[in-house]
């Protein structure tokens, strides 16, 4: 069947879609957007998280036909041209990426959190990311990155450009503007 939907602002008409196929498969294998990762295929790991009509979902559990006429935004659609989204910047700066497989899903899910909650508490961050598994277990750096992105966003400050060798460490409870570069080594 044909499925027509908007992905990252561009309309896509995809032919030959099998009726039982997932949105994730269509994105990766038919539209050429491999950012969303295919791991568990049962909604356990969150690596395939995308926005569907503005709501984060596991794209492996959305039937492709259900995306007909809908708006999809993937991790590839977060950056503004060549400029990374502040959440992406924060993940880079905090060393929140190890093998990188869980990163796209975490970034979309964290992006949604700080869109909705200006200053999420640690409990809120943990709850928001509860459905995203990092097999490298690099959760501390991931939490650092989300805190940093949230602090910058709520301070209305654009993310600093990436400076090689420079990292940012932030601890729980620090308010915006207090994050000091060079606090913690990248992991």
């Amino acid at each position: 069947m044909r499925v027509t939907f908007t992905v990252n602002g561009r309309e896509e008409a995809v032919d030959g879609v099998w009726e039982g196929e997932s949105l994730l498969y269509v994105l990766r294998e038919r539209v050429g957007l491999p950012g969303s990762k295919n791991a568990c295929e049962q909604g356990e790991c969150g690596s395939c998280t995308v926005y569907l009509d503005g709501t984060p979902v596991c794209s492996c559990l959305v039937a492709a036909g259900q995306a007909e006429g809908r708006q999809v935004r993937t991790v590839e659609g977060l950056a503004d041209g060549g400029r990374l989204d502040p959440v992406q910047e924060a993940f880079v700066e905090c060393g929140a990426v190890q093998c990188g497989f869980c990163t796209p899903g975490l970034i979309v899910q964290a992006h949604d959190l700080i869109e909705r909650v200006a200053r999420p508490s640690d409990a809120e961050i943990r709850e928001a990311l509860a459905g995203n598994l990092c097999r490298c277990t690099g959760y501390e750096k991931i939490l650092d990155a989300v805190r940093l992105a949230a602090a910058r966003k709520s301070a209305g400050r654009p993310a600093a450009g990436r400076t090689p060798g420079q990292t940012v460490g932030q601890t729980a409870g620090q308010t915006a503007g207090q994050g000091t570069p060079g606090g913690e080594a990248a992991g």
Partner: protein
Amino acid sequence: MDFLRPTTWEEALAAKADQPEALPVQGGTDVMVEINFDVRRPPALLDLTRVAELREWTVEDGGGCRVGAGVTYTTVIEELGGALPGLAQASRTVGSPQIRNRGTVGGNLGAASPAGDSHPPLLAAGAEIEVESRDRGIRLIPAEEFYLGVKRSALLPDELIRAVRLRAAGGPQYFSKVGTRNAMVIAVCSFAIALHPEDRRVGTGVGSAAPTPLRALEAEEFLRGELDWDAPLDPALARRFGELCAGAASPIDDVRGTAGYRRHAIGVMARRTLAWAWNDHLGRRAA
């Protein structure tokens, strides 16, 4: 495989009547797992996400609530926590934010897994399931008659689940669930309680501890006879209630837990949730 996408309820009923073997799909959090893993190959998927009315809910002044089959767990949590606290508590324990954004109470009923988190609070609250077919119209099925076996329900092949009907909480409600972590957990076992002070009755729901979710009827009868609604909770009575709830379970050993553990945990959760609810009950009367 066909992919059917009705946009109105009438179209959906017609599609199900014409193709009774079509598998309804709402959030896909159960159905798509089975398809991804090749466990199920239905001849057709019946996508209900375009039927807007299924996403609606109403709470009437008189206390009657109707929750459309397409209402997500996220919506229950954000919008129905006041009227339906037991169902909202259970909804908070479902999967992850991404799963709660898609998964629906109607889908939980359609799957009819004994471990589904919606079932215990629906049983405790005395909910009815509104189902409909094109040819025979609407049936209201009491929750305790809806679950027939492991992943089997009273839904007939040409019927679709349209809504859940229940009363807004007239008293405290609690849900408790045992699992290995606080997210992404299929219940080892679960328990829901609802106090109905208006008719001096306590409703129960036991989850993941028998082939179907069920009410602990003997335990409910025991409280109906013994509970003094004006007095503090007698610890001996709470213990006996726990024992009777544990006795209502007929659990199995499986990868998530043993039968003995499940039976024990049901007793503990029943006793605790009764104590929590009773504290609230006495607190409300004092206030």
